[in-house]
């Protein structure tokens, strides 16, 4: 084990190297670019045995990643915002072809107006593509999750692509000390990827031909089964990882003060890091506040949330994303998870386009929501907090 002080992006590239990634089709976009840069440096210096494919767009990057993965290569790529949006068609393809690609997504807002700063609408817009989605809060968690991601995605019962999402700049460009295990320990944890379905030329096969409705329906159901299976795999892989390397980031969720709280913040990504500090302020003011950080948004931790929040007096969700004309994603899905329980859920839209959202304003939002609940007794409430 050694300590490495580096930015979130560089740690993501380092994790791909430690995972012994073999093919990297990649297209640079702010704020993801330094992932691509460092990976190409690793390869140039001979520290990493991988093929970096320079492509003409993100759509091509994902198409190349699918091809590489289908032919048995451990494949990595990274993107942000508009790049992810351009991949959209191929994201569905990666799922349907059951390719365990791992992709780092550095969350950034979509234009216009042009913005390079963080927001989660880019990855939230891809939540229905069948990719496993983890939202991480630290550079340590970026490293650990990318290593775990390959083991989860390549599990034969899962075989689904995996995106590791983290905030642009606040995480991607901030240096933090990260504990990095020895290469041999990682190799021991993560065996090489073996997949030879399409490489047996004595028995040639083609993948993705037309399927009539009955077969198509079966294949969609098979993806859903794998997504359900991914829950168990996430739990077993993450507990094995934390036993081996001492890093514990929770499983599908990471709860704080869940035993002794009646007011809960539920959020994900870097906002959850700020929310953790806001809990300290609230608890100092004798508010029994707890936090549930959603680590995996897909598969969604419905049962886990229901279990922890069933007796909550108030649940406050924080969304750094929008779904115009409907409730934002975390708010919407938390309400859905708690359906039928007598638990009020209040939602806040915060931090869009990189707008600062700090622990103090989160504590103010929670207190504001508590006041509204007390004065008006509503079961649900949604507000945009611009200040």
């Amino acid at each position, binding site marked *: 084990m050694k300590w490495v002080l580096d930015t979130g992006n560089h740690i993501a590239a380092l994790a791909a190297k430690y995972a012994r990634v073999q093919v990297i089709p990649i297209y640079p976009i702010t704020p993801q670019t330094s992932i691509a840069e460092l990976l190409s440096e690793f390869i140039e210096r001979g520290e990493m045995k991988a093929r970096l494919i320079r492509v003409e767009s993100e759509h091509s990057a994902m198409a190349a990643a699918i091809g590489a993965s289908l032919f048995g290569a451990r494949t990595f790529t990274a993107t942000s915002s508009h790049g992810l949006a351009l991949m959209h068609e191929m994201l569905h393809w990666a799922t349907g072809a059951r390719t365990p690609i791992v992709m780092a997504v550095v969350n950034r807002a979509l234009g216009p107006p042009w913005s390079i700063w963080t927001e989660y609408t880019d990855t939230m817009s891809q939540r229905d593509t069948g990719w496993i989605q983890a939202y991480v809060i630290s550079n340590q968690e970026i490293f650990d999750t990318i290593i775990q991601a390959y083991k989860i995605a390549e599990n034969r019962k899962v075989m689904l692509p995996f995106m590791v999402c983290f905030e642009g700049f606040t995480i991607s460009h901030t240096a933090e000390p990260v504990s990095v295990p020895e290469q041999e320990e990682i190799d021991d944890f993560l065996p090489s990827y073996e997949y030879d379905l399409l490489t047996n030329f004595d028995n*040639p096969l083609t993948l993705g*031909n037309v399927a009539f409705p009955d077969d198509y329906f079966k294949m969609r159901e098979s*993806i859903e089964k*794998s997504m359900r299976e991914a829950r168990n795999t996430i739990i077993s892989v993450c507990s094995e990882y934390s036993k081996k390397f001492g890093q514990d980031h929770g499983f599908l969720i990471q709860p704080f003060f869940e035993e002794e709280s009646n007011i809960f913040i539920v959020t994900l990504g870097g906002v959850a890091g700020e929310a953790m500090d806001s809990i300290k302020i609230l608890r100092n003011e004798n508010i029994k506040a707890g936090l549930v950080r959603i680590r995996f948004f897909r598969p969604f931790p419905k049962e886990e949330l229901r279990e922890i929040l069933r007796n909550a007096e108030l649940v406050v969700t924080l969304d750094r994303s929008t779904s115009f004309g409907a409730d934002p994603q975390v708010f919407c899905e938390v309400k859905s998870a708690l359906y039928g329980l007598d638990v009020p859920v209040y939602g806040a839209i915060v931090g869009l386009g990189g707008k600062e959202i700090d622990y103090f304003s989160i504590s103010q939002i929670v207190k504001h929501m508590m006041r509204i609940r007390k004065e008006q007794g509503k079961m649900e409430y949604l507000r945009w907090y611009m200040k």
Partner: protein
Amino acid sequence: MDSQQVLPLSKPKIGVAGRTGFWRSLTPIIDHDKCVKCLLCVVLCPEASIVVERDSPKILYEYCKGCGICAEECPVKAISMVSGDEVGT
């Protein structure tokens, strides 16, 4: 492979996409008196529906979709596109 997923795989075989001949509205007919046996039509057929039989091109009407590329490309205009359900079947 011990994969447990239902995968959209297919094996190569003749007519893997079904009997696509019934998609056809115009049918290519080869006039063998005009044909110079250059076999360009065999090479250019996008559906591999023209085979070589005794050095001459032969259209497999079970799979020919009637796209007309062979008629367009034939250097001696020996292939004509003919309408009608009964033609060539």
